[in-house]
């Protein structure tokens, strides 16, 4: 075996080792699935797993951000009254937009068009 090929093999070994130790992105993709993050935020994990996640959360900013995002989304979806109001407003906007399109008028009010 030549010295060059030995060098390459060593380099590949080091690279593989690095990927095993610091594969933050791959790691996040594989382990931090929606299902697992959900189990974490809803305390559905066994204590040992939860502890491990707490540690990883401190180590990986990306994971911490992801957990915060999941929690925020849930909080936002719990605002049922606001979601109901949004639905009602969307319906009004949609109905009036299609009315305006049919009447070929963008700036006037429905009452003006029918008058």
């Amino acid at each position: 075996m030549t010295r060059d090929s030995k060098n390459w093999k060593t380099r590949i070994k080091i690279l593989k080792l690095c990927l095993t130790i610091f594969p933050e992105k791959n790691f996040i993709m594989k382990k931090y699935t929606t299902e697992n993050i959900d189990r974490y935020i809803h305390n559905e994990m066994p204590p040992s797993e939860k502890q491990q996640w707490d540690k990883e959360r401190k180590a990986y900013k990306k994971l911490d951000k992801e957990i915060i995002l999941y929690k925020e989304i849930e909080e936002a979806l719990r605002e049922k009254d606001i979601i109901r109001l949004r639905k009602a407003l969307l319906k009004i906007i949609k109905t009036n937009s299609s009315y305006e399109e049919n009447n070929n008028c963008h700036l006037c009010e429905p009452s003006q068009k029918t008058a």
Partner: protein
Amino acid sequence: MKHYSNNKIINGILQNDNLVLQYIYNKYYSGINLHILKNNGTKEDADDIFQEGIIIIYRKIKNNQFPLKCSFGTYLYSVCKLLWLKQLRKEKTKFLIKERLPIYLKRNINQNLIDAIEKKERYSLYQKYFLKLGKDCQKTLQLFLDEVSIKNIAKIMGYKNENYAKKKKYKCKENLINNIKNDTRFKELENEN
């Protein structure tokens, strides 16, 4: 067009009264739309800003922070103009408020209102994408948030078993989160923090 007093409008918003909401749309939307079209916006932007304006006012009313002396229309215009300015020059909002808002609008805007807008910006993005999900997904996620048991969720939604209900929940959540992450506004908000 029937006229509603400030109080009736405020109560109507709180109670999600369709007649009042339609009245607000008929009376004020065209002005807001015109302002946004004149200032580099589109009809879609106007729809968005109108909706956000009402939501901000709803939050204010709910927290007893709506200035009662102010006319509803003036306040709505102020909020919508502020929202649009903010969108146009995100990072320089506060500067713009001082520099470019007419005096009568400045009177209606205080730091409290700016904070309210900024704080709930992310929530409005999440809620908008939630409403873009299919009805099945919306209902499934809502039932989970209401802590209905998986067994009951499967029953209510007509899913074949509990496992499927769980999978559906994760799938819906994943879709929601991916859509949010792909939104340019979400990326902007991330960079702001």
